[in-house]
């Protein structure tokens, strides 16, 4: 680092005020520790954590950092379940959490919010007015809108309903690494035509600028009704969903599944007497609750026709909570509790390969002589969006080096499967470990274009340094 810590702290304090510049050890630990199964080391910590309270302050912090070549890692809420927010070269961690203003413009049909507003808060405020946010991530209670836009995730929702944030962001305010503030996009419900700089920053995972403010479209909140289908195997669910769209059924908002192993753990954990095998859940929509219910019944008939051993609409709130609990949580605290958890992957096969990919992932640990073969694997995911997650769990007694090795094996496996099935991988901010996938799938020319764009926006490579280089 080119500037002594004391001097850097003094300069940053002059910008944001003393309360918002933190150098305490445990403060820095909290902004470095990510969901990697192994711990951070002291050398992984940022030197200082800064909490600017306005776009102007963000600009001044970046201008200062750029002037002195200090690395800056942007931090929303740290929920991305991967290590994009872990500083690779120390320096400043810049939190967006104080950028919390939220304005809902119902006449315009969009909202504007600071990057640090949680997804849950945006959604709650929209719901009060009968609208919904076209993003639904599992970490919505903590995850920020800035983070979701930055990685371009709509979470569990099916892409074809509302699209991803890149389709819904109408404009952005961005601070460039050199400190300039730019504003993009339009205020109409029609997205900007031609060159729209907003689209460059959405999904850029924070390497080109710090998104400080977002203008985004919202939608009327639909009524929903859920249907569960019990199938003998996850492969059967794959077969059903691979033809679902061809049946031209009423569109579903969300389609989820849990494999046989997840269900077994979940049923045991909750003490449930559901049919053995795997389960699928769909969320049907309607303008009225009657319409949603009728559509859910259509899904029930579809599941039965596609070989479900049992299917029904989740009208009882208690049973509904149990079924969703099996899908969302139980594998974490059921049988797997004695294991540290996990490294999760995401594979997105095209529909014709959905069943084949499920079959492969459902038996992924069998007959392997690498460390993956020594893990417990749990297959689940957002099958409506053709998004398959596999969670690999292993004992926390494993030495760190062994954990690091298995994590690398798992990432390699994810890359191989996405290449094999022509998938795109997940959208939870995995840039640092997805670089090899990107280079193989899209080629060196594509990767070089991104590197050059990075250089154009960030000549001193201060922002999220190390992520585009694929550093851990």
């Amino acid at each position: 680092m080119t500037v002594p810590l004391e001097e850097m702290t003094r300069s940053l304090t002059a910008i944001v005020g003393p309360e918002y510049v933190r150098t305490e050890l445990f403060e820095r630990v909290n902004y470095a520790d990510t969901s990697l199964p192994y711990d951070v080391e002291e050398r992984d910590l940022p030197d200082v954590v800064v909490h600017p309270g306005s776009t102007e302050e963000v600009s001044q912090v970046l201008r200062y950092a750029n002037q002195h070549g200090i690395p800056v890692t942007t931090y929303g809420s740290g929920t991305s379940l991967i290590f994009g927010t872990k500083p690779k070269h120390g320096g400043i961690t810049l939190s967006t959490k104080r950028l919390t203003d939220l304005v809902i413009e119902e006449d315009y049909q969009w909202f504007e919010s600071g990057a640090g507003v949680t997804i849950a808060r945006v959604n709650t405020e929209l719901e009060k007015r009968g609208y919904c946010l076209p993003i639904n991530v599992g970490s919505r209670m903590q995850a920020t809108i800035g983070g979701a836009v930055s990685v371009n995730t709509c979470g569990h929702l099916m892409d074809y309903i509302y699209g991803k944030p890149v389709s819904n962001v109408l404009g952005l305010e961005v601070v460039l690494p050199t400190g300039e503030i730019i504003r993009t996009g339009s205020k109409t419900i029609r997205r900007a035509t031609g060159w729209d700089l907003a689209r460059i920053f959405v999904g850029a995972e924070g390497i080109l600028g710090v998104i400080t403010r977002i203008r985004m479209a919202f939608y009327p909140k639909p009524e929903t009704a859920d249907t569960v289908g019990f199938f003998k195997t996850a492969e059967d669910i794959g077969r059903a969903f691979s033809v679902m769209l061809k049946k031209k059924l009423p569109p579903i908002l969300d389609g989820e599944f849990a494999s046989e192993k997840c269900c077994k753990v979940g049923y045991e954990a909750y003490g449930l007497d559901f049919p053995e095998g795997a389960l699928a859940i769909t969320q049907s929509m309607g303008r009225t609750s009657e319409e949603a219910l009728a559509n859910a019944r259509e899904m029930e008939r579809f599941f039965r026709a596609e070989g479900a051993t049992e299917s029904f609409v989740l009208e009882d709130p208690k049973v509904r909570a149990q079924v969703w609990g099996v899908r969302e949580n139980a594998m974490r605290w059921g049988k797997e509790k004695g294991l540290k958890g996990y490294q999760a992957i995401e594979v997105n096969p095209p529909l014709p390969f959905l069943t084949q990919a499920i079959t492969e992932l459902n038996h992924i640990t069998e007959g392997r002589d690498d460390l993956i073969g020594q893990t417990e694997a749990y297959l689940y995911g957002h099958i409506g969006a053709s998004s398959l997650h596999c969670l690999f769990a292993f004992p926390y007694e494993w030495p760190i080096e062994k954990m690091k090795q298995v994590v690398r094996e798992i990432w390699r496996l994810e890359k191989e499967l996405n290449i094999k099935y022509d998938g795109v991988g997940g959208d939870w901010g995995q840039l640092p470990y997805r670089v090899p996938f990107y280079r193989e799938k899209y080629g060196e020319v594509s990767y070089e274009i991104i590197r050059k764009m990075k250089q154009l926006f960030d000549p001193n490579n201060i922002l999220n340094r190390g992520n585009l280089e694929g550093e851990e």
Partner: protein
Amino acid sequence: MEEAMEPQDQVQMENIQEYLMSQLVSCEKCHLCNTDCPICDYRVTQGSFGINRAIYYGLKWNRFDTELRDLVYSCTTCGKCVATCKHVSRALPLVEIFERAREFLFVEKMIGPMPDQRPVIKNIFRKGNPWGYPPQERTKWAEGLAIPFASKERRVEVLYYVGCTSSYDPEGQKIAKSLVRVMKAAGVDFGLLEGEQSSGSEARRMGETGLFEHLAEGNMKMFEEAGAREIVTGDPHDFYSFSREYPLREKGVRVEHSTQFLKRLVEEGRLKFSTPIEKKVTYHDPCYLGRRGEVFEEPRELIRKIPGVLLVEMEKNRDQSDCCGMGGGRMWMETPKGLVSSQAIAQKRVRQALATGAEVLLTACPFCKITLTDAVKAIGAEKSIQVIDIIELAAMAL
């Protein structure tokens, strides 16, 4: 309390360290425990997740200092994070972990509790109450009320354990006197303990487990000598300790919070309310009665049995109820700089109550009553809402 440790204590401390590491190593690091954590603000460190990680790395790197202490003692022990972790992640017993960490910092590292809490613990040890009031004045509030002391010679149907706050604090004493009125109206044969002392609940929350055990032993002996078969208390912190941390159930002693007890008296036909109270009220679940004690419905059922009362719920109620900010030993500490103050937490809760349009904010805990009353004053809402205990309302309705 600051002497060199005995070998058995050393073993115990190693066990605590092992326990903490074995639990915290399995944290998924999803951050969702910070959701709705009352002390959470714009920093990750302000909240359950930050405390959890600070303990883990403090142990791992052998770094124990006042920064760590301030974080560990900032938790109100409200239990919201425990419910969240169970619902969405690894079901870590986070409050238990934080309390054990406090014990470790207190006994092994001698950097706990918080400076303001040190005299409080001494007072509990020497005087049997956190403020250091004379023990002989503990039952002064009951003078003239003709309440017997339970003893070998004078057995009672119900032993009323008043608790420190309702024994000494004027606001708490109003609750105690109200309960006495109601029990007398219902013809309950009840008595007090002449030598009543702290249950030790707050000492345990501050990490002084040894003092808690010492007090629990003394109290158990007094309960046995008094022949207690049923203990009723209006203090949820004592209720929690008696029902979860004392071996009372094993000895066949029934423990009830005063709201549970009165609700039962009404159902048994022993208690009748004849004065309608035409008021719109809302109810704040005390953390140690609700989330931690798992008593959610009985207080509400009791409120509904009072004629004329209209109960409206706050948006956050029952297991989702927000904290008043004073649990976990925070009643006796100044909030360290940069962490969320108890007043801010209480004011947030009062604003939620005001949003319901209720004219009375009911609670069932002397801590909550005191804290929320202060918050009402601080935001200048005295003309809009009044804070009282359910027991006081019940006494008005006799």
